[in-house]
């Protein structure tokens, strides 16, 4: 995909999201679209994958209704969006996984050769461990809670001033082996 067209689309999408009065809360579909767009700006995406698929893991806290609800919505939305979609030559595959511990997560991510993980709500206490595993397995971490980004995850999405903000923890992304294009970084809110 042409990078400049993509970023324009991304900006348009962000603008379209914020143009809706009810977009104060980002929907699963919008979130899924943003995740797929951001992955396209990762120059190391193919290197971090198995060479065939871009595996995305939806990580949630089992027993947490909000977390499970978000997990279901996000999984459905990503599956809808990834159907037939190709990112950097890779087919998109979506998998949900209930967080138990870092070791299990590490094993799971390793087995899936995951390239990204979306961290649902309810996992605030596990953020440091999740971040550690993600950095270990070079998996780009996303979250809807910008506080998690500040805590160590790489990319978060937030609604503020009637527009969507992409929040990037630049050291975390680099620690996770992600090489984001500067064009994306330029429109993002950065934690350096």
């Amino acid at each position: 995909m042409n990078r400049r067209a993509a970023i324009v689309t991304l900006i348009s999408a962000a603008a379209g999201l914020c143009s809706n009065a009810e977009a104060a809360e980002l929907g699963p579909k919008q979130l899924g679209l943003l995740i797929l767009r951001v992955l396209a700006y990762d120059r190391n995406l193919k290197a971090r994958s198995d060479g065939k698929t871009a595996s995305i893991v939806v990580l949630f806290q089992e027993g947490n209704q909000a977390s499970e609800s978000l997990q279901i919505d996000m999984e459905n939305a990503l599956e809808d969006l990834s159907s037939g979609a190709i990112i950097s030559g890779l087919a998109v595959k979506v998998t949900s996984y209930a967080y138990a511990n870092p070791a299990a997560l590490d094993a799971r991510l390793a087995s899936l050769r995951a390239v990204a993980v979306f961290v649902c709500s309810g996992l605030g206490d596990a953020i440091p461990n999740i971040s550690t595993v993600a950095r270990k397995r070079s998996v780009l971490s996303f979250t809807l809670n910008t506080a998690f980004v500040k805590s160590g995850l790489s990319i978060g999405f937030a609604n503020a001033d009637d527009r969507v903000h992409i929040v990037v923890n630049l050291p975390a992304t680099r620690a996770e082996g992600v090489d984001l294009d500067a064009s994306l970084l330029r429109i993002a809110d950065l934690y350096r």
Partner: protein
Amino acid sequence: MNVHLTAISLRARLVSLTSLILLAVSLALILILPSRIGEVLQQRMEERVASLAQVAAAALTAGVEFDDAKNSQESIDGLRLVTDFDYALVRRANGTVLVSINPERIPDSRVAVGSQSVITVHNGVMRIDRAVTGKVGVVGTLTLGFSMSGLQLEMRAWQRNIILWSLLVLLLGTAVNYIIGTILVGPIHMITSVALRIAGGDLSQPNLGITRKDEVGQMAAAFDRMLQLLRGLASVADRLGRGDLGGKVLLDGQVGEAIQRMVAGQRALVGQISEAAMKLGGAATQIYAVLQEQEASTAKQAGGVEEVSRTMQSLHDSAGNIAESARGVFENAQRTRQTTDGMSSHATTLNSHTARIAELLEVIRDIADRSDLLALNASLEATRAGEAGRAFALVATEMRRLAERVTASVQSVKSLLVDIRSSAASTASSTNESRQLAENTTESARQITLVTQQQRTATGQVLESMQEISAILSDSVTSTREIRASSEMLRRTAQHLNEVVGKFKLEGADK
């Protein structure tokens, strides 16, 4: 200089002038326009380079800000597609090189960059240095180089095209000017040719027939009008040459008025000549008649003089006879004195008769004197011309009468002498008286001889005068004949002049 210019044809001058103007304009365009176009092209290139640098800097902002060499390289790789692109260099804020294209061509020198781009030209390459500004301010610098070979090629192409177009405009302008000059000068050549033929006396040229409305057309129309005027003048001159002074001169303007005045003047002059010729003819006729009369009168005078001469000759002869007679008387008286004494008794009678004879002789002498005076008067009168000749006839008549009286007196003397002879014969017997009478007679005869000699001398002088008068009158007749011949010639001349003047046609002049 003016001589040189006027020696060149009008078309050549027009073509030369316009060609010089076109050449000057072409040279100005060739000398000025390429440099101006070069400036414009360079300015346009600077603007294009500045725009490209601005776009490239904008594209580079993220890459430089986030030290993304790949992103930055991709951003500047697009510049390779730009025409005349030579090199590119992106430096971080600390001066280290982030990315570059053709770094070997980049000069070592660094340019301090502020808020504005800096454009420099070196070795045919236009270089621009510009700051790359991110969210946090200046994050690096961009240096781009563009070859100016294309600009130079374009300038040379412009220069070549300008030269070619200037030459083309010069050639086309010269050709157009030549055509225009030919179109303008053509009618002038036609007018000049016709004018030369007219100057050669050929007025049979048709009108030029140029119907243009411009100055040349106006000149041609004026020339046609002048040609028409010349034809009118020639027609008038032909009429005048044929002696036709009648009719009206239908010419306008000063020339027409002058011709009209000339014709009127000639008409008046011919009229005056005709009148003078008529008068001269009349005068010559009158002179001829007068001279005829004068000639006749002179002839008459000559006849009178001839008659007077003959009379005077007779008188002269008579005087001779008287003298001869007186000589006889003298001899007779001497013989009487010698032979008869009786004549002395009749001496008294003879003496009285002798006294009578003396008186008669006195009369004769008076007559001779008057004849002499009259002859003188006649001579004076004869010297005058004309009517004075008539007076001479009277004088001649008077002289003739005097001659007759002289003749009568002589005749009386003769008769008296007869009586004397008779008385002498009757008194011959008286010796004393006769002797005395003879002596007296001798004395009287001697005196008569003397008187008659004097008379003969006088009449001889009169005869000479008469001969002179006759010669004068003969000359006068000759002169009068010559004058009459001259007056005849004058009359014929006047008649010829009148005939010549009569050939002039004066009728209709005042219509």
